[in-house]
């Protein structure tokens, strides 16, 4: 099975205009790696979930996500956005954005990642490490260790 996150799925300088642009930038990385077949279709699924309930979490986090028919491989893309993007958290914009993509019908994979990621985000040390990681490689190593327990 492919790795959930790779260096090609990390963007340390996300466009900061809005949620749409930030999410699209990460979705395009998924498409480039062949993990998403139809970027627009996938983004529509992500938007539908976001409209139901915003995915922003206090402390500068956004976790847009969707189970989607346009996803071939369970994936996690990560982006850092210095200016911040509004993901609907009550305390302001997110500078750490995680885009989770799961194939439709595959419950378990999607579930474990989202749940274990959210639990780790309680810890400031994890968030700060993500904010200061110098390279995409460092981000991947950090997420694999903290979230995937490798």
């Amino acid at each position: 099975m492919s790795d959930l996150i790779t260096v090609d799925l990390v963007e340390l300088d996300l466009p900061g205009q809005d949620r749409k642009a930030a999410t699209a930038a990460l979705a395009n990385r998924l498409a480039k790696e062949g993990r998403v077949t139809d970027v627009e279709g996938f983004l529509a699924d992500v938007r539908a979930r976001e409209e139901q309930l915003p995915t922003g979490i206090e402390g500068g986090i956004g976790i847009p996500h969707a189970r989607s028919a346009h996803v071939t491989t369970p994936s996690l893309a990560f982006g850092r956005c210095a200016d911040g993007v509004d993901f609907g958290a009550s305390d302001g914009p997110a500078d750490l954005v995680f885009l989770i993509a799961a194939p439709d019908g595959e419950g378990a994979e999607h579930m474990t990642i989202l749940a274990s990621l959210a639990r780790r985000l309680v810890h400031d040390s994890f968030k700060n490490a993500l904010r200061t990681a110098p390279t995409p490689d460092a981000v991947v190593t950090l997420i694999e260790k903290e979230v995937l327990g490798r």
Partner: protein
Amino acid sequence: MIVTVTANPSLDRTVEVDRLRRGEVQRALTTSVDAGGKGVNVSRALVAHGYPTRAVLCSGGFAGLELLALLRETGVPLREVPVTGGTRSNLTLVEPEGTVTKLNEPGPGLSESEVDAVLAAALEAIGGEADWVAGCGSLPPGMPVDIYARLTARAHELGARVAVDTSGAALDACLSAGPDLVKPNLDELAACAGAEIRTLGDAVKAAQVLRDRGAGAVLASLGPDGAILLDRTGARHASARPAGSVVSTVGAGDATLAGFLAAGGAGERALRAAVCWGTAAVTLPGSSMPAPDHLDRVTAEVQRSIDPDRVLTK
């Protein structure tokens, strides 16, 4: 950061028997033990969603030690207040055809200094950084009924907003202190307002009584009918459809409060989150709290104009 205070937590034992026969010795089919406590549940839900929280709770005796051990597994940061009396054990007897019998102990009697210690621990946990403190659940014997009123006054001095989720005399007594939010369920709302509630309109009127007596906002959970929020801007109603069948409504009200506070603790957005979290909780066993992925298939609707004649399910 959201601080929760649970003055009367419990060790919840669930025992399954084929049929409960009074006066006989029976063997249980299965047995399980869970950490119980409304504030503790709120903190568990928040941790599962990545929100900083701290749970203040009383703990005493062996049941208290077992409770703390169970809670440590959940990753909730704890601030325990040691008390002399033993933490209560609540017993739930389940029969296969669905009858549930609950035996809830009153909880340990607290001394005056232990009451002061609970308040001090709560204020210390709030520090200067908590946005909200939530006082949750029934009070153990010896705990003065105005404890949530005192918590409200002191927390406000520290700049934190206050939510109270309790019933009976403790709810009555907190209102005049002006908690920012109270979260009664239908029965608690009716009892506190001294009114019968049959329709959504009745529920809004009852919530107005609580506001008139001092509550800043009233979030009333209405079971399958969702929840209403009454604040200074008026009333709203929200309901959601669960993504699966209803498994256990235990703790759903706590998930509702957690969702409301996580989404900022005010307004329509928080109301929507509240019903989503609460609705997700009923599809999970026991007092399991929803994780973020459990919200994905819940669809919620918020109504700004309330149909006052809508008859409530219960």
